């Protein structure tokens, strides 16, 4: 048995917040108790001194691109699982837009086999909604479920046909699988490559209106309402989306949602080379960033300060259920190019927790809520038994030094890719240890 002693345990799922002793036994949580470790226990077991540390349930990230199979130069399942463990994330949901697309049991089983070999963070596959994610024929959803897929999504390639989406929701509903949507009306996006607004106008870049997301979310909410299916809205970027989800939840639609650290930290000013336009996150010693920074290019795009505030508000009041990274590794070939030609996406596994803690420090989010949106919140979205320290739960636990400052140096990432918009930022909050099912998979060597 392992005894984690003297730390501040924050486990929102069991409404725990205080100094406790956490006992891990055989890959499960045996007990979380107020009583300290006895002399007898100390003699017979491993005891970890957690004084001054936060003891949290392992984090759950519903939205990660691991690139394997197909683009192993950017990331592998092993390197991604290693990066996740270093970021305190013990469970990731792997997006299906690999090469080939995860639209069959064989790809889904391959992903899990690779993850088992790596033995780091737990990797759960997401299956495609449509065959090849082409938006036309439904994938073999029952087969995907049987092979371990925890949700269905054509992430990155919105299902443009409302008719196909309706049938996908109905079929998935029969199987009890949530459908995750990258909501974007591509006809409104057109050639757009960043948020439509004054910054895009100044830079001469074609804009993407927030309505491209909101219109599609509204469509999918209507279809979810009509079919009774569970809709999960990925990477909310716009205030209008928050409003739509709020209204839908109020009228009983089965909808959950996630937001990324980059959308709650940055605005479209980052594209113009203003890395932290939000005062709470201002970086005094970060290196200057040039305009047309492709590390500020992602889909959906970074939006305005009022959108950012709406997302933070929704994370606080629970309209947005989860923080998810949309970890999207790319190399210099995709990123060191003209802005309009650059690939979308940034890596996020190793900065997600510290950026969420920055919201806490800025007074925008209470700590227990922040932990909830990183752990039990996302777990509940997909009905996963993780993200809690409840007795009998898998022993996924992280120890966090919430005050420790560190400089984001992408060269030191465990991920194979370096495309972070937070390079050079000084963040607070470092993962000291990560346990997955009682096994130590990461230990900070600093």
């Amino acid at each position: 048995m392992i005894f984690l002693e003297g730390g501040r345990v924050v486990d929102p799922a069991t409404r725990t917040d205080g100094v406790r002793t956490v006992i891990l036994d055989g890959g499960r949580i045996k007990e979380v108790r107020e009583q300290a470790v006895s002399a007898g226990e100390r003699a017979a077991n491993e005891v970890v001194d957690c004084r001054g540390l936060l003891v949290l349930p392992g984090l759950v990230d519903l939205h990660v691109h691991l690139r394997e199979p197909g683009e192993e130069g950017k990331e592998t399942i092993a390197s991604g699982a290693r990066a996740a463990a270093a970021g305190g994330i013990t469970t990731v949901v792997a997006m299906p837009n690999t090469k080939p697309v995860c639209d069959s049991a064989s790809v889904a089983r391959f992903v899990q086999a690779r993850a088992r070999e790596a033995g780091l963070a737990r990797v759960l596959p997401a299956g495609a909604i449509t065959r090849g994610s082409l938006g036309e024929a439904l994938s073999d959803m029952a087969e995907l479920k049987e092979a371990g897929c925890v949700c269905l999504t054509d992430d990155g390639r919105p299902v443009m046909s409302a008719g196909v989406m309706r049938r996908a929701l109905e079929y998935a509903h029969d199987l009890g699988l949530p459908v995750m949507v990258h909501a974007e009306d591509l006809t409104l996006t057109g050639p757009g490559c960043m948020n439509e607004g004054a910054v895009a106008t100044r830079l001469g870049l074609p804009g993407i209106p927030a309505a491209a997301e909101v219109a599609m979310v509204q469509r999918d909410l209507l279809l979810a309402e009509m079919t009774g299916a569970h809709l999960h809205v990925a990477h909310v970027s716009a205030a209008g989306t928050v409003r739509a989800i709020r209204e839908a939840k109020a009228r009983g639609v089965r909808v959950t949602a996630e937001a990324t650290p980059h959308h709650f930290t940055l605005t479209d000013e980052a594209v113009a080379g203003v890395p932290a336009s939000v005062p709470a996150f201002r970086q005094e010693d970060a290196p200057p960033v040039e305009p047309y920074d492709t590390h500020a290019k992602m889909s959906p795009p970074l939006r305005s300060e009022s959108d950012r505030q709406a997302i933070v508000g929704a994370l606080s009041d629970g309209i947005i259920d989860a923080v998810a990274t949309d970890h999207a590794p790319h190399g210099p070939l995709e990123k060191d190019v003209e802005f309009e030609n650059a690939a979308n996406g940034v890596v996020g596994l190793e900065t997600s927790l510290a950026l969420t803690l920055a919201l806490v420090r800025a007074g925008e989010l209470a700590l227990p809520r922040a932990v909830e949106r990183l752990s039990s919140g996302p777990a509940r979205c997909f009905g996963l038994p993780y993200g809690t320290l409840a007795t009998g739960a898998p022993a996924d636990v992280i120890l966090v030094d919430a005050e420790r400052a560190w400089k984001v140096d992408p060269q030191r990432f465990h991920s194979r890719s370096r495309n972070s918009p937070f390079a050079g930022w000084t963040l607070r909050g470092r993962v000291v240890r990560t346990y997955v099912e009682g096994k130590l998979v990461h230990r900070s060597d600093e």
Partner: protein
Amino acid sequence: MASEFPRHLLDIESLRREQIEEVLGLAGRFKRERAAARAGKARAPRHEILPGRIVVTLFFEASTRTRSSFEVAAHALGAEVLSFQKDASSVTKGESLQDTVRNLEAIGADVLVVRHPAAGAPRAVARAVRASVVNAGDGSHEHPTQALLDALTLREKLGPLEGKVISIVGDIAHSRVARSNVHCLSKLGARVRVAGPSTLIPAGVEKLGCEVARTLRDALREADAVMMLRIQQERIADARIPGTRDYARVWGLNARTVELLPARAVVLHPGPVNRGVELSSEVMDGERSLVMDQVDSGVAVRMATLALCLGAA
């Protein structure tokens, strides 16, 4: 003074007013010298300002007047000119852009004059090389020498631009000329208005420091000058305008609508003009038109730009 001028001219937005004045002052001198030479009053000014320097024009988009204007300017300063025309569609990876410009630098380029369909591309070039980089138009971002030549043309005609009202009419959304002009003219103290159909007015444009007029009448009212922008056929395909006829009906400057301008107001166009669409032939060839004078200013402004970027003025 000359040493303060930036090594690259990537945009007008980051220039200070004094730097703009410096280019205009030098360009004005070059322009007068060229005019005197043409009139036979002086010998052609074969300036030996950039002897042996190599100016490379690297155009990833078709252009006749801007490129030849730069090349004439470089010749007039005694520089050698190398000219490259590349099809941007074959260059999809930025690697190739950077590789291309590094190769040109290895050939010995002192200045790279770059036109590229992607906004920000000249900045990426400037990061990749030690040579000076002059932006000759990047996507819908900026076209700094066009704004400078417009300012020179206007200043010669109207005097100091302080308080002058200058309207830019047309496809503001896709116009790098409009963006550079809004920055340049407002830095010189002018009041700048932009106007056009709502489909071609980009979000938040007023934050660049201009007003937005909703009708041609409002755009032309009390204006000292109006700059008409070219309307492209592609705008019909992407549903921004129904057609050129409908556009001309609402936004075209013709014998009738030109009367909405004050009597002494002048008309500019960066070219090439769609006669009968944004500008009718009567107006284009009429007394108010400064279109040919703009072309003349262009060479002088590009001479001044090359000289100042190389610290040779």
